[in-house]
């Protein structure tokens, strides 16, 4: 009788290794940036059109539904940037060891959240 292989593909109970988490978030943040890019493009062009449009764009950007998208994009951008930087280091064979890879993925996760909070605080 063949041995039954235990499989667990339940996303709510799977424990991703930290580097895998960073990797999938890198992909997700890229997709998020791409999906919400039309909003940013329109906001960017509007903000340059005239002074009144500029004021209106900024007040819209910080009004309720859009501010969540905006902060989400800020997080996506920062995470994508830092995780991409880590990716470049891995390409250059820096930090390939398991301990270093775990440490660097932890610091990517933490620093992207800290960076997002910092940007929200500064804006």
């Amino acid at each position, binding site marked *: 009788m063949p041995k039954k292989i235990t499989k667990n593909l339940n996303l709510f109970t799977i424990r991703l290794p930290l580097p895998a988490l960073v990797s999938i978030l890198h992909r997700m943040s*890229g997709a998020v*940036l791409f999906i919400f*890019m*039309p909003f940013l493009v329109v906001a960017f062009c509007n903000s*340059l059109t005239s002074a009144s449009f500029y004021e209106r764009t900024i007040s819209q950007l910080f009004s309720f539904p859009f501010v969540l998208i905006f902060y989400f994009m800020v997080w996506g951008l920062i995470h994508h*940037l830092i995780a991409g930087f880590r990716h470049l280091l891995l390409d250059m064979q820096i930090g390939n060891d398991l301990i270093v890879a775990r440490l660097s993925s932890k610091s990517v996760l933490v620093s992207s959240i800290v960076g997002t909070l910092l940007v929200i605080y500064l804006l």
Partner: protein
Amino acid sequence: MNVRSLKSPFGGMTQWLYQRFTALFMTTYMISLALILTTYRPLTFDVWASLFDHWAIKYATLVFFILMFFHAWIGILHITEDYIKVIAVRTTINAFLFITMVVELIYLTYFLIGYSYD
């Protein structure tokens, strides 16, 4: 239509290189822009608009967006290839995303090239 044919002008290795070089340019651009913007702390419309009226920043912005969509397009091809197994569906979604991307790019190019702040 075969999705591979969309990819064929760039093999795997060149895609890999394009991702990295576009990323380097975009990082440089964004860090420079962020540094420039932080020197004008109350960021008024006059400062914002005259900044993008400067030819260097205007064309760097245009190049930034072109490279960004190029970078994003390679990423999108990889994502849809991984998660959408039915080729007809995948190709349709790819085509839709490509068209939205090109529309955004044309809009931006038209806007930025014609842009001037008086």
